[in-house]
């Protein structure tokens, strides 16, 4: 396994609101290895964006980081002052946001926006910054960079704008790139372009990427490892293949079951009944997913399941993996996919 770039240990974040204290992130731990893409999947409100904003320390004023450590190559980002953090942002860790239409300043030429990113962290002369800017534009496949760099954001299409945003993020060769739902606001063809671009860039520039999304199809395309989040916790984490073909947590089963494929042949689509909890204090005890879980055990109502090991790379937080638990059978569709996957693996190996 390659070395660990970013390690989040037991992160808990809460927000003080008029309705009370909201525990958005409750003890999240994961690590990001050098050069890999980790996808964080989950419903709206699962805490994925808050987790990643905490890495950048870009939270709202009413947010508190209750506990945890965020180690970037060993240095705890939570212990840095605001001024030191400003040097980290954009330089070591960069972020790409969801909506390309509003991520760029409409009154500034895009060339200047990219150059600003470069000169912010590197002491370079004007000519060098311009050269780097043009190089970045070529890297993200914007044609005719010299002319295009003098244009304003409204003169570009959505997909091009997202590519420019990626160029801005990569301007200082950050070690970690956090992409917060970069394809959600784009149509499918643009999605494919951006995903291909990110994979290509990752190979060339060798950044580690955290890809937040709620679209499992996108995850299948980009991710090396996947973390599934629910109600502020990571419920399952593993290699992409392990999550897709051998999921162990009932929530992951629900997500995969709900994802229609070309073989889906049902009159109605499956959905997980109910909705996620609001996590306002006091947070109910036990497994947060239990009320919606068809496979819930009596113990789920009292005790939160810890992460059980499925393999060296695969962990799931469900009491079903406890040796004392009854055997649970995942939905038929998933079992079938697993069988087909294993057969394919045997055929490819043999």
């Amino acid at each position, binding site marked *: 396994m390659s070395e660990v770039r970013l390690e989040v240990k037991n992160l808990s974040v809460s927000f003080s609101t008029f309705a009370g204290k909201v525990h958005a992130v409750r003890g999240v731990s994961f690590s990001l290895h050098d050069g890999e893409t980790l996808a964080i999947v989950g419903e709206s409100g699962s805490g994925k964006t808050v987790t990643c904003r905490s890495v*950048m320390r*870009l939270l709202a*004023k009413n947010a508190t980081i209750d506990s945890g450590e965020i180690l970037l190559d060993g240095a705890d980002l939570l212990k840095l002052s605001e001024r030191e*953090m*400003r*040097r*980290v*942002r*954009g*330089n070591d860790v*960069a*972020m790409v*946001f969801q*909506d390309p239409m*509003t*991520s*760029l*300043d*409409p*009154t*500034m030429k895009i060339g200047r926006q990219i150059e*600003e*990113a470069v000169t*912010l*962290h590197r002491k370079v002369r004007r000519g060098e910054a311009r050269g780097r800017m043009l190089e970045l534009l070529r890297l993200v496949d914007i044609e005719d960079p010299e002319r295009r760099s003098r244009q304003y954001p409204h003169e570009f299409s959505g997909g091009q704008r997202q590519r420019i*945003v990626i160029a*801005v993020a990569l301007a200082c060769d950050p070690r970690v790139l956090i992409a917060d739902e970069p394809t959600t606001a784009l149509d499918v063809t643009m999605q494919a372009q951006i995903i291909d671009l990110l994979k290509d860039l990752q190979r060339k520039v060798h950044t580690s990427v955290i890809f937040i999304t709620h679209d499992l199809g996108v995850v299948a395309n980009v991710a090396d490892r996947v973390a599934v989040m629910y109600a502020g916790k990571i419920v399952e984490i593993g290699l992409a293949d392990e999550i897709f073909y051998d999921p162990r947590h009932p929530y992951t089963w629900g997500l995969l079951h709900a994802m229609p494929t070309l073989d889906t042949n049902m009159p109605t689509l499956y959905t997980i009944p109910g909705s996620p909890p609001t996590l306002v204090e006091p947070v109910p005890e036990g497994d947060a997913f239990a009320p919606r879980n068809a496979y819930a055990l009596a113990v789920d109502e009292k005790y939160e399941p810890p992460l059980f090991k499925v393999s060296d790379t695969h962990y799931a937080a469900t009491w079903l993996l406890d040796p004392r638990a009854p055997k649970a059978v995942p939905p038929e569709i998933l079992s079938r996919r697993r069988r087909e996957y294993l057969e394919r693996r045997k055929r490819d190996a043999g």
Partner: protein
Amino acid sequence: MNIPGLNGYSTLAGRTVDRYALARVPADVNYYFGTDEFGRDLFSRTLHGTRISLIIAFIAAVLDLTIGVLYGLTSAMKGGRTDTVMQRVLEILSGIPSLVLVVLMLLIFSPGLFSIIFALAISSWIPMARMVRAETLRIKNMEYVLAARALGTSEARIALSHVLPNIAGIVVVRTMFSIPAAIFFETFLSFIGVGMKIPNASLGTLLNGGYKVFRIYPSQMWIPAVVLCVIMLVFNLFADGLRDALDPRMKE
């Protein structure tokens, strides 16, 4: 031009005389707007008065653009307690009646350009400050500001490079609108005697003089009044046009 009533002839006790000939004015000298009771040419005095008005306009614009914008920008970017305190200070300042302030200042300063500028400096920039604050708060929540923060841009840099260019349109429009208000303020002060001192020629003092002889020589009041109206109208129309062109909220 030999327009009856405006050609320098007046009738007194049945006799029509050329008043200018009587006053031994050379034949080639023309008073386009006539003269006042001291023989001062109204045309040149009106020009001079207009110049004063435009100086006031310029100063009001500068005050708006410097104090107003800076105050509103700082207040909104800092937020929190600083913002609250600054807004309360603004409310106190706006509660001070500027007319009373100018009159009180006569105790210290003699009436003139300086007292007018001082009164303007106290409160004319307040609407601009409020508007800049509102717009800055709106821009602050835009995603490109968040993206700039994510790059590690300092707050000051964000205010200058990202917020200012995006509020520039409405700042310009607002400045143009505050100019007629300032011109009127000066004229009003001079009219009631606490602004420019007589014999200085300002539109207000001209109106003051003209109002005294309005029944006999109405042109003495009409002319400065029309000039004042035209100046204010021009600036208002200009500001209107600029707003149509620059204000993003007016765009479809």
